[in-house]
């Protein structure tokens, strides 16, 4: 009987002591956290995508609370999140143009010439080891082994017909794919931008013709016909100036290679 009592007593006292020590320690070792930081952290998307340029959501929340970071950097949370954070910090929201990823390549399976059949690991970086340009003849092409798919936290990337494709409805514009792409071909473009040439090849037209059924040959037709002078052929590749583009979509219609992509539903082009 006495040993039962003793056992209860010993464990009870032991537990009591530990509890007291922990309670005491939590006071001594209390780390002061800016209440703003916690409030901001609660507003963020919580994906830890790193799109803001800080190590995870906690890092960004700490930077904002310290006044070191702008309030609209959380790309995953979007405008709603930026507004909440700005309200906590008591500053103006400021415009944060949502971005989306874009893969400027149209060299789908069967349309882009191949140097050899690649059977190695399913990894773009590994495929690049063969002369630094994968198995497609076009050195600017998407390899299509899905390093971007692996890093996308939002399921917005998929491989369709051998090249990466962005699901614009799911993309939050964190830019993780652009960073993961070993060829650095994935670009971040403003979500409001409707037209983009889906080619990245700077080679001369005749060479592109041989390598890919869809590559930009630098024919300058888009440059000549653009009503806003927003599209220019630079180094044998059409480039859209997003600040000038009026989103009319004319270039997409007239491109002889059909590589200028138009996103979303077409509005009647206003002829000016």
């Amino acid at each position, binding site marked *: 009987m006495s*040993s039962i009592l003793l056992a209860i007593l*010993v464990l009870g006292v*032991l537990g009591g002591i530990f509890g007291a020590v*922990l309670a005491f320690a939590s006071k001594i*070792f*209390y780390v002061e956290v800016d209440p703003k930081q916690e409030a901001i952290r609660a507003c963020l998307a919580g994906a830890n995508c790193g799109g803001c340029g800080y190590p995870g959501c906690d890092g960004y929340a700490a930077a904002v609370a310290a006044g070191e970071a702008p309030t609209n950097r959380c790309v995953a949370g979007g405008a709603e999140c930026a507004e909440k954070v700005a309200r906590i910090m008591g500053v103006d929201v400021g415009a944060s143009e949502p971005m989306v990823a874009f893969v400027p390549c149209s060299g789908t399976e069967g349309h882009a010439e191949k140097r050899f059949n690649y059977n190695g*690991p399913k990894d773009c970086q*590994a495929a690049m080891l063969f002369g630094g340009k994968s198995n497609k003849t076009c050195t600017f092409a998407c390899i299509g082994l899905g390093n971007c798919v692996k890093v996308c936290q939002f399921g917005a990337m998929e491989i369709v017909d051998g090249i990466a494709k962005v699901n614009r409805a799911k993309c939050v514009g964190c830019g993780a794919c652009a960073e993961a792409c070993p060829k650095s071909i994935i670009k971040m473009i403003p979500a409001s931008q409707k037209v983009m040439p889906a080619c990245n090849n700077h080679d001369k037209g005749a060479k592109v013709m041989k390598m890919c059924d869809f590559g930009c040959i630098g024919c300058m037709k888009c440059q000549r016909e653009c009503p806003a002078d927003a599209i220019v052929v630079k180094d044998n590749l059409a480039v859209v100036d997003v600040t000038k583009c009026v989103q009319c979509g004319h270039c997409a219609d007239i491109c002889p290679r059909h590589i200028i992509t138009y996103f979303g539903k077409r509005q009647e082009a206003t002829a000016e």
Partner: protein
Amino acid sequence: MLTNIISISLGAILINNFIFSQFLGCCPFLGCSSKVETATGMGLAVVFVMGLASAICWVIDQYLLVALHLEFLQTLAFILVIAALVQFVEMFLKKSVPSLYSALGIYLPLITTNCAVLGVVLLNVQNDYNFLESLVYGITGGLGFMLAIVLFASVRERTEFSDYPECFEGFPICLVSAGLLALAFMGFSGMQIF
């Protein structure tokens, strides 16, 4: 004395490796071994906690439980000590060594439920180790755990890119490779040092 320490260390790291021959701590071994970096973090945290737990539990055992003839309470008391200890260490690190705290991160609280930690303190009692021997057994046991988990993580990193039948995708191939690693470590069993 020194030979004794060396034999305990080698025994804990290689011959009676906690994971591969005693099968303790298998849960974090499989859960935290997908990358070498995280495996190293987990390993370091285990070394740290096992060493501390061995020392403190030895004191509690000798001067409280044995003295009061309450040895049957060992398991219960040790769990209490380990849980409180891990909590305390976490708070201490957060305040004093934030860099180490962020490095160990989530692994520290996870260790509370790691059976290897409870195993090492119970084995200390079973083997009648003195204070120094307990401490050495705790730390080297942790090092053995770290060796195992880092080795296994590097194996897993490689299997990710290798060609194996699709039905082995994911956990199955992981368990198969863990089994092979354990077999390799079984080669040490029965060895005697000094």
